[in-house]
């Protein structure tokens, strides 16, 4: 009987150590729609970078004109 309880205890503590599955956005990855999110954010970032490049050029032009 004591052995039975000891085994029960061990099995309970073992199952308690199994961490419950953490919910992740598995569906978004399986359907492939995560690529839409990545594309949108990439477009926004490239847009901002293009803006920075244009600003950079404008300032370079001003610097050249002032030097003249």
């Amino acid at each position: 009987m004591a052995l039975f309880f000891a085994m029960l205890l061990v099995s309970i503590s073992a199952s308690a150590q199994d961490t419950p599955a953490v919910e992740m956005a598995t569906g978004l990855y399986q359907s492939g729609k995560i690529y839409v999110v990545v594309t949108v954010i990439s477009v926004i970032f490239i847009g901002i970078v293009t803006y920075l490049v244009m600003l950079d050029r404008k300032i370079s032009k001003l610097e050249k004109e002032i030097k003249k």
Partner: protein
Amino acid sequence: MKKNWWKVVAVVFVLYTIIAGFLFNVPAQPILHETIRNLYFHVPMWFSMMTILFVSLWHSIKYLSKSNIESDIVASQAAHTGMLVGALGLITGSIWAKYTWGAWWVADTKLNGAAITMLIYLAYFVLRGSIDEEQKRARIAAVYNIFAYVMLVVFLMILPRMNDSLHPGNGGNPGFNKYDLDSTMRMVFYPAVIGWILLTVWIFTLRVRLEKVKRKLLYND
């Protein structure tokens, strides 16, 4: 183009982190779930802020030794850029906190420390705005800026190590230990830090150049 290679590096690194940051595997952690990916975007803001504010400090010290007004312009523009990334860090952190810790703001050492640091730097701009004479303004602002950076080190690096925090590695090293970041995450996180720092430096150099052009036009010096 030869001079601008680092801007290309900045763009490529950040673009890589946007793609890899969403597509690479991350460890499934309770509470965090997919928000663990915020690490790639929120934390580099603070790295960028500390770097650019160090640039500001450096030029303030330079001003005090050489009294060249150009150093003062660079220092103030670096501090401005630091406030931009700092504000983004605070806002993104607040959003992240709402969905993991349950509130927009919690009395955490790092949160309050970051907020106080921002206020100290805002006072730097108030101080600058209140002095008309240029050399005097530059000198007082430079001295204050050294004090401000010391406070930043206290609030963001020393106090979090002495108190408990909800951030990873709480009550000890405020950085990550080997259990917080796995090797896939490191592959995204480190390029993210480098990319965002370089991008911040780029914005900062634009500000400095614009300010110099403005001064040339206004005062012809």
